[in-house]
């Protein structure tokens, strides 16, 4: 039997009326990768946030190697041997890579009140090199690196001091294949050193592959802890949702012809550093999947079509001849766009659910040129409920919602506007299977009602399961095209991607 490392005893936390974590007790062992899974809003991130000092707990105690710990913030948690890699950006712009790695730990490089910047840079570079990230310059301002590289820097920041417990909170969704491989390497190393990794992910295959044991949370309550060995994805789904879920929540239709009617045509799109030369046609009532490795340029396609790219060349034209050059024209012509970067590009995070849903529909909501609160509330409630958004009310701030519910708010906004062309970039990123199933069902409904959807995704199974056609991109250009077919496999797509 492995030795107990961390014991969580009766941990409890409420946010208003929401019981986020409901008296959870859990044990974590040395040399273990312990996955925490559950639907969005099940309490996984809240539980680990209390462990790492991001939130304060209302009740309960954490014991690390038998000693009670009360981290006040992330750095305090680090000092006690607990670290976290968060879901969203955890590094700060304007600081150098080295300053980010040692933020809050500058005292190691300070003597007589003077910070020894050179020593800090040297140490940071040594660490980066030891992880194999030699291409990252410790003295460079972190803004010069992209989202994925910044995540790699965060991995170094969170693990270089060999924490006893490392929380990896939904980090893999931000990483491409290469980045994931690096992260798993680090997790494995942590395990070999006799530490514990608490791994949060919605990718159940990935969870089964990487972890030794899995704890399932539902509505803040611990449902069960099971060993990975001998457990199937369906077993986990059942535990998460609390009822049997059919193994396949994707579309089951095959062989339906795609409409001849082209609703949007993009020709020779070029965006410096992102797109080399890319063209596509979107048909009425079609779900067009776009896939590839994370840096292949596919995420820029969504922006380019919506008129949100800078320095874009080429043309985007609608069936009626309207040229889409900017976002207002796109919205006016019934195009919707949900970005991969939900918090920064899709939602007004410090605003209410109501305002977020009503934002593009304000013109339609006016009565006698005046906006009425009652109308806005009714509108937001209608579409939030249609998307089964878990919320206290439409007055709740979106920042308090889980990732899946935030995405539902984004979708509710565009459904409310009744857009005809919907561009969804990573629509199910960081979202649990129940919400995923809801979103897929909604997409299928929209398709059937004649809406056209462009779904950009890094998840191959999602592309195969939902798309009428799939475009695979590589290095900013089209690499291959596939039609929906039962015979089409993930290997076919991967072959084109790499």
């Amino acid at each position: 039997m492995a030795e107990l490392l961390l014991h969580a005893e009766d941990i409890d936390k409420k946010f208003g009326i929401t019981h986020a974590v409901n008296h959870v007790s859990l044990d974590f062992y040395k040399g273990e990768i312990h996955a925490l899974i559950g639907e969005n809003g099940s309490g996984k991130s809240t539980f680990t946030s209390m462990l790492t000092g991001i939130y304060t707990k209302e009740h309960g105690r954490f014991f690390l190697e038998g000693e009670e710990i009360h981290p006040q913030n992330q750095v305090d948690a680090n000092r006690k041997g607990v670290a976290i890699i968060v879901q969203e950006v955890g590094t700060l712009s304007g600081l150098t890579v080295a300053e980010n790695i040692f933020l809050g730990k500058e005292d190691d490089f300070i003597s007589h009140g003077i910070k020894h910047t050179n020593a800090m840079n040297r140490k940071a570079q040594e660490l980066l090199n030891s992880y194999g990230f030699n291409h990252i310059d410790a003295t460079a301002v972190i803004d010069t690196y992209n989202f994925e590289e910044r995540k790699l820097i965060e991995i170094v920041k969170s693990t270089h001091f060999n924490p006893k417990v490392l929380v990896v909170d939904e980090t893999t969704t931000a990483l491409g294949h290469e980045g994931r491989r690096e992260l798993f390497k680090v997790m494995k190393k942590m395990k070999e050193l006799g530490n514990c990794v608490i791994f949060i992910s919605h990718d159940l295959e990935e969870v089964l592959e990487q972890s030794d044991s899995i704890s399932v949370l539902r509505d803040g309550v611990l449902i069960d802890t099971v060993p990975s060995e001998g457990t199937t994805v369906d077993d986990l789904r059942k535990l998460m949702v609390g009822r049997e879920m059919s193994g396949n929540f994707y579309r089951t239709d095959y062989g339906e012809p795609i409409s001849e009617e082209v609703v949007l045509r993009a020709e020779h799109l070029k965006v410096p550093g992102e797109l080399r030369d890319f063209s596509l046609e979107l048909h009425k009532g079609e779900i067009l999947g776009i896939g590839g490795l994370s840096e292949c340029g596919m995420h820029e396609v969504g922006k380019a079509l919506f008129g949100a790219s800078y320095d874009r060349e080429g043309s985007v034209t609608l069936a009626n001849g309207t040229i889409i050059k900017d976002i207002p024209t796109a919205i006016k012509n019934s195009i919707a766009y949900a970005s991969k970067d939900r918090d920064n590009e899709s939602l007004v995070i410090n605003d209410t659910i109501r305002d977020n849903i009503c934002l593009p529909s304000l013109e339609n909501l006016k009565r006698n040129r005046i906006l009425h609160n009652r109308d806005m509330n009714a509108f937001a409630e209608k579409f939030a409920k249609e998307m089964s958004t878990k919320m206290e009310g439409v007055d709740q701030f979106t920042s308090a919602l889980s990732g899946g519910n935030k995405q539902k708010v984004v979708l509710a906004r565009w459904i409310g506007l009744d857009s005809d062309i919907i561009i969804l970039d990573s629509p199910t990123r960081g979202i649990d299977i129940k919400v995923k199933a809801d979103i897929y069902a909604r997409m299928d409904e929209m398709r059937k009602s004649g809406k056209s959807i462009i779904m950009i995704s890094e998840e191959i199974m999602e592309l195969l399961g939902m798309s009428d056609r799939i475009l695979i991109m590589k290095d900013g250009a089209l690499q291959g095209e596939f039609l929906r077919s039962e015979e089409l496999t993930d290997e076919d797509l991967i072959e084109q991607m790499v």
Partner: protein
Amino acid sequence: MNVKKLRESQWFGILILALMTVLFWAVFKIMAPETFGSYTKVLTYIKTAFIYAIGGCGLYFICVMGPFDMSVGANIVLSSVIAVTASKYFGYAGLIIAPIISGTLMGLINGLVYMKLQISSLIVTVGLSLVYEAIGIFAANGKESVLSTDYRAFGDYPWNIVVAFSAYFICAFILKYTKMGTYAYAIGTNEVVAQNMGVNVRKCKILAFVLCGFFAGIQSILTISYGTSMTSASNLASMSRNFTPLMGTFFGLAFKKYGHPVIAIVVGEIIISFMFNGFVALGAPTTVQNIITGLALLTIVTLTTKPIKGAVVK
């Protein structure tokens, strides 16, 4: 070194600053060859620029985090009055120590009130400016405070340089070699993340106001020594003293990506001094001077900042 690397290097920033300085000097020299830009006149322009740059250094700590301090002018007025009084009793020691203490104290009060009330820094510091101005009137009995001719060494070269460069050195040192420098940038980028990393945001913000007050105190030494007298202000008349240091701070913020904000603040003030004096040399009315100076400042900061496309600017 490729072109992109070169454009991002610290030397590129310094080169731009140097070229701009020469350019502004040359433009006014060509337009007013007799009345602008001789060696002795340039020394005078630089002398005033050095004074304002000290306040610019202080404001930098606050502005880089996000808030503003509009009480720097009132601080300078009151600290100058205090400096004159202290010099009568303690000589140079009083002239140096008293304004630094009073300036720092005002900074501390600003910081504490700002953090306690949790309202906009603009409102807090404008409100407190009225208080500082009133105290200045009481302290000077409503009269003009004149610095004795025995204690005016800091009003001219070389002692003004000693004081000014000591202040710049302290500012650059704090930014580069103390935790406060890193934390100021971290808070300016994302206060919540900084807090989660263990940064004591409250303490840092108060410290930023304290530092701003400290530098305003140093600026007061040179201000009173150079101007030799100070009249107490009322009804926010001191507000105009905020803007020249603030312009230097804008240069610092625009050039911080090159890693030398203090150099940018000092050179920025020199450029602004060239402009003010250039217009005077040309005999331009004050309104025209203000319009052109304002536009030139906006142009310089816009061209040098080169914001990332799509980045949110507040």
